[in-house]
């Protein structure tokens, strides 16, 4: 059975390495990720949002709904732990 897991892992790894062959080099300033959407964040953040920290500007403003989702995720985690672990109050009190 263990050999099956090794093979599965290797297949996944090889698939990923196959994908790497067409990827841009590390730190390439002209890779597509750096020239399509992000220039606006870098060049216009100060003008459009009056905030110098671009990460915060994107986090809280341009993609603010993602962060809302993120906060909800962590809220979900807290309520999940509460549901899974916390004992019923009646048992504790009585």
């Amino acid at each position: 059975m263990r050999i099956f897991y090794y093979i599965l892992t290797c297949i996944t790894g090889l698939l990923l390495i196959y994908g790497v062959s067409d990827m841009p080099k590390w730190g390439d300033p002209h890779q597509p990720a750096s020239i399509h959407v992000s220039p606006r964040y870098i060049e216009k953040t100060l003008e459009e949002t009056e905030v110098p920290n671009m990460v915060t500007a994107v986090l809280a403003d341009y993609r603010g709904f993602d962060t809302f989702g993120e906060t909800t995720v962590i809220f979900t985690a807290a309520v999940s732990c509460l549901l899974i672990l916390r004992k019923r109050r009646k048992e504790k009190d009585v």
Partner: protein
Amino acid sequence: MLEFLVGKFNYYIYIFLMMIGFYAMIGKRNLVKKLIGMNIFQWSIILYFVSIGAKKGGSIPIVEGLSGHGAHIVSHASQYVNPLPHVLMLTAIVVGVGTTGVALALLLRIYNKYKTLEEDEILRKMK
């Protein structure tokens, strides 16, 4: 060939880490080891995303030389690294923390019920 390896070293590192995590998740029989594998798996993806954002010669994405309200400062895209992957990964980190929290809570309950964290023993006790 060398360029293929060296110029893209970040991807190979993340794939290596990811496969460690992946194997631990599917192959290990101890539930805590599975959880550790899950963390390695998630963090390797975070590493990958952050490495997309890198630019040679780029600075951290905070506008420099700002005193007061300097809306006149003109930045060029090549001056700073790409902020978007960083933002995405802040979210992914939080998701990872949340998942780990829930998984730990589950493990506590499992340990409390079966008194072991070895999957084989749990399966035996369930019958």
